[in-house]
Structures are given as C-alpha cells and as structure tokens.
C-alpha cells in the first residue's frame, strides 16, 4: 500500500489515527442507521408493551409472531405477490426491449441515433406529474386501469429509456470483427444478436435487472395513480392502506414495512457490484 490513494490508506496512519477513524465510522453508522434499528425493534415489540406505553424502550419480549400475524390479519401477502408480479414482468420486458434497442444503437449507423439516445436519457429527468394525466387516460382507454398489466406497461416504457443507454454503452464494446465475421459466415442478423451479442452482454443485463427491480418495486406514485383495489395493489401503496386500518398497531406496521423493504435490499446485498456499476455508469 503506497501513498497514492486518496484518502490516505489507513495502514499508513498512526495507531491513534486509526482508532479515531474506526470510532468515527461506527458512530456515524450508528446514527445513520438509527431509523432502521428503531423500526426493526418496533417490529418485534409485543402488544403488551405498546399498551403499557413502552414505545421506544427495550422490548420486554421479542414478539417474532408479529411477522406471521400480519400475514393472517391483512392482505399483505397479496400486496407482496402483486409487487413481485409487476416488478418481475417489468424487469423482463425492459431487458427484452432495451437489448434490442441498445444493440441497434450500438452497432448500426442509423441516422439520428444520437438524438434518439439523448431523448431516451432525457426522459429519465421528466417529473412524473408531467405524465400522470395522459398516462392514466390512455391506460383507462386500453382497459388496463386498476390492472397489474397497466402498471407493467408504463414501467417498461419509462425504464426502457435509461436501460437502452446502458445496454448500448456495453454492447459497443463487443468487437465489430466478431459481428462482421459472423455476417460473412452467413449467420442471420437475429442469430448474431441472440447467440453472439446477448451472451456477452449478460453483465449489462444484470445491471439493468437490479436497477429496474429496485425502481419498480419502490414505486409509489404510479401505484397510487393506476390501480385502486387491494387485489392488484403493490406493497408500497398497500402498506399505506394498512396504516389507515391499523393506525395504532405499530409493531405490525413496522413488520410489514420491513417485509416490504426486504426484496430490493436483499437483491442489493447479493448483487451490489452490478447495482453500483449500473448506478454510477455516467461517471465511469
């Protein structure tokens, strides 16, 4: 380890500096995660504790059963299932569309392709309120209002913008000679994409998948906007209806919130590298 890293590598600092550094890291982490620690403890608080007014003290018992009871007493399971169906469909759709469009923009000299790419990226910066009235009207006309398919369709359309840029940037690195050789061998264009380019683009697909999963799973605005019945409601909106129903059962709500947050968090921990590569693509 040499002094060419910034900030200075810890191994080059004095023991006192190192001790100070680690104290600072753990103090900061403790403060940073306080809201999450608080909600984790609340999720295991018993009703007896809540009745006794023990809202923030250490729980007298750990009521793990909250995590099971909430499934029996509320439609949480349906909400979670809806979220999975909507999110997985949106991820698959976005990957399918953006691998096609990304390849077209990466390896063919189409007139105006840079402008198109610019529009795709710019779409990401549009406030959702700018889209809400026409999108709801169109989803309604298609007969998809209050259906999971309506949400899926919109999410695919919106996410395809940034996903196309991401796939295109990655596919540009596939050597032209590889594609040209395949072409001279008489391999059909579609087979070149499916059998040669796509297998090489797996890391990019993984990046798109984790990001789109997180964005769509965490969406609240469109869940509010495009569905209204519990049978199709995803969990972000569902948890808010539970709040209205169970206003004082914080332990249940906390357990429900943690369950709602778990899928993207788990995915992030397992695919941190892909997630970070995707999110920071503009800098690298």
């Amino acid at each position: 380890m040499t002094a060419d890293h910034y900030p200075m590598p810890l191994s080059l600092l004095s023991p006192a500096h190192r001790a100070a550094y680690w104290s600072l890291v753990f103090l900061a982490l403790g403060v940073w995660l306080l809201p999450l620690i608080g909600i984790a403890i609340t999720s295991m608080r018993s009703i007896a504790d809540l009745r006794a007014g023990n809202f923030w003290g250490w729980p007298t018992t750990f009521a793990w059963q909250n995590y099971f009871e909430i499934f029996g007493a509320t439609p949480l399971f349906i909400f979670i299932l809806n979220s999975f169906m909507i999110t997985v469909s949106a991820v698959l759709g976005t990957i399918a569309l953006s691998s096609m469009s990304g390849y077209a923009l990466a390896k063919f000299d189409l007139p105006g392709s840079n402008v198109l790419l610019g529009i795709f990226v710019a779409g990401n910066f549009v406030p959702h309120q700018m889209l809400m009235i026409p999108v709801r009207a169109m989803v309604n006309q298609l007969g998809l209002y209050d259906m999971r398919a309506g949400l899926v369709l919109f999410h695919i359309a919106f996410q395809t913008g940034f996903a196309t840029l991401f796939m295109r940037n990655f596919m540009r690195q596939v050597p032209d000679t590889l594609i040209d050789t395949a072409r001279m061998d008489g391999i059909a264009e579609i087979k070149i994409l499916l059998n040669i380019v796509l297998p090489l683009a797996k890391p990019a697909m993984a990046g798109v998948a984790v990001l789109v999963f997180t964005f769509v799973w965490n969406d609240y605005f469109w869940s509010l906007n495009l569905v209204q019945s519990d049978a199709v409601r995803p969990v972000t909106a569902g948890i808010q209806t539970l709040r209205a129903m169970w206003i004082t059962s914080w332990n249940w709500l906390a357990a429900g919130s943690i369950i709602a947050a778990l899928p993207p968090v788990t995915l992030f921990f397992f695919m941190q590298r892909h997630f970070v590569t995707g999110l920071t693509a503009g800098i690298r």
Partner: protein
Amino acid sequence: MPDLTRPGPENQRHRIRPLYSRPAKPLVFPILLLAPAVVLFAVFVIYPILKTIALSFYSWNGLSQPRFVGFANYRELAADPVFLIALTNSLLWLAAYMAAPVLGLGLALLTSQQLAPMRLIRAMFFLPYVISQAVIALVFGWFLNSEFGLLNALLHAIGLPSIHPLESERFSILAAITAGLWLQAAYCMMLYLAGLSLLDRDLIAAARLDNIGALTLFRKVIAPQLRPATFIVLMVTVVGALRNFDLIAIMTLGGPYDSSTVLAYFAYEQAFSSSQRLGYAAAISTVLFAMVWGFVGPLLLYMLASEKT
C-alpha cells in the same frame, strides 16, 4: 469492470480499409429492433409530455369537453397563494438538498478505504437509497409522531417539552426534507465513491511528495478530478428535490393547511383528489417540468461541453 462510456480501441472505426469489403448493413433490421422501445417510449413518455403542455391551456374536469382558455390557468396560478407556497417549498427543498452532495462526499471519503469490512459498511450506509420512500416516509412519520414518536421520547428523557413537527406549519416541510436528505445523501455517496475510485494515483503520489497541505491537496488535485462525479451528483439531486412526491404525500399530505405542499404534490392533488381540475394540474406540472429543465439543462450542456475539451 470495463469502461462503459468511452469506446475502446477495438471499437474505433478501422482507419485502413480491411482487405475484405465490409458487408452492407441493411437498415431494416436495426429499425425493427428499435421499433418496440421507440413506440412505447413515444406513447407513454413523449406524447404525454406534449399532451400535458397542451392541456395546460384548457379547462377540463375529465368528463366534459375540454374548453380552451389560453393562459388563464397560468394567470390563476400567479395569484394562487397555495401555488406560491408550493413553489417556495420546492425551491426550499432544492436549496436544502444541496446538503446531500456535501454529506455524500463526506461519507464517501469516510468509507472509501480499501479494507475488507468496508464493502459491508458502504452497503449499510447506502441502504436508505434502496428502501422505498413510501416505507421511509412511514418510518420518519413514526419518529416524529407528536404523541408516541421517538423524537419526543428523547426530548422527555432529557427534560425538554414535546415538539410537534408534522403538525407545525413551519416545520412539517423540514421534517419531510430531512427524510429525503437521508436517502439522497446515500445516493450521492455512491456516486462520489465511483469518482474517488477513478482518481489519478500518480498525481496524488506526486502531490504528497511535494508535501502540500491536506486542504490544498483536496482543492487543487482531488476536487478537479471529481468534477464529472459532481455534475452527475448535482443533476440527480436537483431532479430528486424537485420531483419528490412520496414523502410529502405520506408524511404530511401537504398540510397542515397546505403549508408543506410542493409542486409535485399540488399538481397531483388538483388533478385527482376532490377537485379534478386537470387543466390547472397540467399547468402546475408544466411549470415543474420547466423548472427541472431550467436547472438540469445548463448542467447537462456544461458537462457535455467540458467533456469534449
């Protein structure tokens, strides 16, 4: 991870014509590949933008025939006290969010050490960004709840009287902004970590050999190299600040008495809650849209211009 944005040498067009002639690439195939993405994006993103701008010149309740009213919606906005509150709050949100890049850079510097446990520690700091804002709003709502919240429990413990931030016309917006800063700073941290990993090591080693001070090192050597990261950080922070909806919708419902409403929430409320004033809502959205581009556009242009040099 290979560089995604800059084409590698293998991708640059052959300067010398290869011996074989390049097979002609017909355009039908790529156009077919592009069609689904372009059509869907045009229908669900581009068309709605144009439609909303057009709608802002109409009076419409969603049922009757829309009626053209020219600039009447915008004139009404200029005189609407709630719009002025929403506009002020959105700008306040934007100003307060500028703490996120600073906090994010601090966290990035703190956690960029190349040590085994750092990967996990970085992931923990980043956690707020991965969690739905709908859940974060719920959590912060409990914390600040005036009867049972943690904040007041802590205040009581040290003998101070309770405060009621979410019921206060002055503080409810700040409560929502604080929750937002938490996740926005996590996002900024991640972007700065990427920036820090790309620093020119030789330059740092040389600067250290010259024994320049820590502050000078940061200002003269590090900060200039973090510029691309800073531009992206600023862009996502501006957009995040202006289009925030979830936190207000869940924590304060824009209240009390519209004191914490922001443009994104005000537009939604006018369109879909009781009033159904779609033309008016479209005008609010158009103002928000113009604001986002007013801030992001120059940043984007400046970034593209500096990349070329």
